[in-house]
């Protein structure tokens, strides 16, 4: 008797605990999916969830997230903007979609072309809606050379240029990628893993562009012979650079904006554009197919493209704006450097090739 009572009590507690973990998905239909276009409602209300990467809402400098939320809610007083940090970026949503788990975000901010390639490779249906479905007032201001999605789902909102940052007290400006394999630059370069780091991948793609898919591994063999060091993330490589470990690092062309803001010695933050080039890495935003309020999502995209938001985001995120009408300070213009020529692979070149290039590259380096 005692045993039964005991077991019942235990089972009861266990059942309650487990029951709290069971959820039922609401199979609400996706308003806005399909080929139709969306119309602008007369007023907006409710909540908008925007997923993004951590640094956008919480970086040691003043990240743009707080400003964007405040300004957007001011413009749409009945709307609450919620940020959601996606620790694994778009990958997490691709995994969710492929496992039929719920997606509660309406917009993703911080997409690059690789993300789209991977999402389209893994999923039968598109993760994002086409922006053609909605009339964006500021859509025409986006620079054409930065548009990276042939299906115009992702709309660029800023861009970085990946290139070399060097300490002019220790090395001369490298004028070409070839120069990096020569003697003066032996043991000077810090780069990042193209498997795990955006700048690392951009730099590798730049070498594919320069030396072709057949020749880039030879170039990297020369770089390895010249003692390039490849770290797992931009942060680790930049830490080593900051500590004077080596005089040159693969980084962003906006490096001086940061250095200037923090009163650092500018001679240690010189930006080189080998061959007058740098690799463009535009960041985009897109509305999820699974969004409950896609019209509001596109209103958010439009807001981010407005002159005021473009200027504010560029400065706070230390990237260049993606539009030609951003409100920028002279100081930002002075220190945010742009190359004469931007190198970039488009979506079609990457879809089908990216995996192979990255994997061959990684095996080449790790096999040494």
């Amino acid at each position: 008797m005692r045993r039964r009572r005991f077991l019942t009590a235990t089972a009861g507690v266990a059942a309650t605990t487990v029951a709290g973990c069971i959820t039922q998905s609401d199979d609400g239909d996706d308003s806005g999916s399909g080929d139709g276009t969306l119309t602008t409602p007369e007023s907006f209300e409710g909540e908008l969830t925007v997923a993004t990467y951590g640094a956008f809402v919480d970086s040691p400098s003043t990240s743009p997230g707080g400003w964007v939320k405040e300004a957007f809610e001011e413009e749409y007083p009945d709307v609450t903007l919620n940020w959601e940090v996606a620790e694994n970026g778009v990958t997490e949503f691709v995994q969710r979609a492929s496992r039929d788990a719920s997606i509660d975000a309406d917009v993703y901010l911080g997409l690059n072309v690789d993300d789209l390639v991977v999402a389209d490779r893994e999923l039968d249906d598109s993760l994002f809606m086409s922006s053609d479905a909605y009339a964006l007032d500021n859509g025409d201001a986006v620079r054409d050379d930065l548009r990276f999605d042939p299906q115009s789902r992702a709309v660029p909102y800023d861009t970085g240029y990946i290139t070399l940052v060097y300490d002019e007290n220790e090395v001369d400006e490298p004028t070409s990628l070839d120069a990096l394999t020569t003697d003066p630059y032996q043991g000077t370069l810090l780069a990042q893993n193209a498997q795990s780091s955006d700048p690392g991948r951009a730099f590798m793609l730049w070498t594919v562009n320069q030396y072709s898919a057949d020749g880039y591994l030879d170039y990297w063999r020369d770089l390895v012979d010249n003692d390039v060091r490849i770290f797992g993330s931009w942060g680790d490589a930049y830490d080593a650079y900051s500590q004077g470990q080596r005089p040159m690092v693969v980084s962003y062309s906006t490096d001086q904006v940061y250095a200037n803001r923090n009163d650092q010695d500018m001679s240690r933050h010189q930006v080189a554009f080998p061959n007058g080039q740098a690799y463009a890495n535009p960041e985009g935003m897109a509305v999820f197919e699974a969004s409950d309020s896609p019209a509001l999502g596109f209103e958010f995209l439009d807001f981010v493209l407005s002159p005021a938001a473009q200027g504010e985001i560029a400065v706070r995120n230390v990237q260049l704006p993606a539009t030609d009408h951003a409100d920028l300070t002279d100081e930002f213009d002075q220190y945010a450097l742009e190359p004469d020529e931007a190198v970039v692979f488009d979506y079609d070149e990457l879809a089908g090739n990216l995996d192979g290039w990255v994997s061959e590259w990684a095996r080449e380096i790790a096999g040494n």
Partner: protein
Amino acid sequence: MSRTGRAVAALEHHAVGTVAVAAAVTVALVFYLPVGIVLSEAVTVVPGVPPGVSVAPLIDVLTDEFYVGALAGVAADPLAVGRHAGNVLDWADAFLAGETGLPEFGLFGFTAYQALVSTVASVALGLPGAYVLARFEFPGRRTLRSLTILPFILPSVMVAIGFVATFGREGLLNNSLAAVGLPPVDLIGSLTVVVVAHAFYNAPLVTRVTVAAWETVDARAVETARSLGASRRRAFVDVVVPQLLPAVLTGALLTFVFTFMTFPIVLALGGLDLATVEVWVYALLRNLNYEEAAALAVLETAVSLALTYAYLRYEAAQASGSRGATPPDRVPLVPSPRALLSPSRLAVLAYAAVAALVFLGPIVSMVWTSVAGPDGPTLAYYEFLVQRQVEGTAVQTKPWPAVRNSLTFALGTLAVALPMGVAVALVTTREFRGRTVLGAIAMGPIAVSGIVTGVGLLLGPVFGIPLGGGYRLQVTGAVAVVAAHAVAAYPFVTRSVAPPLRRLDPAMVESARALGASRARALLDVELPLIAAGVVAGAAFAFAISVGEFDSTVILAEGADSYTMPVAVERYRGRRLGPATAMGTVLLAVTSASFVVIDRLGGRFERG
């Protein structure tokens, strides 16, 4: 008997069994199920009648020279024993003639090689520490012993920053070398610095488990040996060493398994040319290449589980013979200033210098970075923390919630992992067939890589496991974080508790039971006080693992409300190191204080 009295009696009667069942359910739900989801990708079911099973991804890995080097040929055609033997003989001839070098064993070979070197380094650095702590008495000895657990909780990103600052070109080591006129050494990105970082993490573990064993060495046996004419050295080798060996091997095995699955340290301090299997698993999973990642992870897990199983068999074989609890007396480290010049004291001083460089160097460098501005000492980074706390928006990470969450989760982990670990230890120390296999299964969380567990948690409990009819079993939030931490931590409780439990005289429990004590009462009144030291050690480990855990916390802590101190450190990291190092220093202070408290309270309990 009153109703409540009966309930308490029933609870006591079934307590051990209930905790064991609850432990099994928790482990299944937040460990084996998630890991199974990931690893099952390596095996595909081929439709047909009857359905077949394809292990193609596994075979692909085993026959890929990049992964297994010279073994690829063997795996491709395992039955051609004669040909393989011939190849080995040919190689041996060529090698002896000096015409060829050692064969390459690919990524797995390199991973095992660096793990072996790391293990040797950790034991070499950890054992003298155990000797000093066990044999000498000096002020701060107990605190120092408590702090041996600290490296466990330091997030690898902080350790990497500290290592670059200590061993980098402008670092402490090179400045010291320059001061005595020696040329600088360039260590960052080399295997050396990765091995030293592994020793930083694991040598204290070796020290900790060895000191614990040393303190239970039976001094009377040493005296007996001495009185029978054995020299001091002879008595040490014949009496003390056999009693320490299991502990040293525990430390070495754990070190090997950890460094075999090493990942963040290699990513942060080594180049890609030092990549390990785990680094590859991480890259493949990130790229959603589940098949190949799972195949690699299966092989990696097989290696570490096999080692764990072999060790458990060894440990069981060592368990015979009970020990007295009369440890040898410690001698004062500094009886007089002149005594410092004796050879053994000089050796201790030399060791202290090396240990200070390896352990204090990175920690001091990190703390120093938190107060070193571009123009001299500054408190600006701490001001940043305070300002963030006061003015931070809802989306930004604030310091105080991080501290609060870390401590709450750690206490929750203690509350869950201690009973779990003790229950598992009780079950696996009983005599029954398959005990070692069960023991190895229970040790799974140590033997499976954090990356695989993390991704499994995401794909399983976090996204929700479909139950049919639109229902999903979903585990997220604080409960999930505590469950995941407890699962990661309980094997350490078990490992701390099982050896002393096995040495207990079963007659004591039996007499208590014969005198009418329930099983739970016997456990509380007889067994636990006798294994208190092990439980306290396990508690410290559980606390440390919870505070230091990063991967699954990030995945499980959905929303902004359940971030911990290591997560905050990572989020504060940008181009400037200052704010992250300030938060790292807060982490260091909070957890150091916690450990001293745990050890002191535990000490009282032990003596009690």
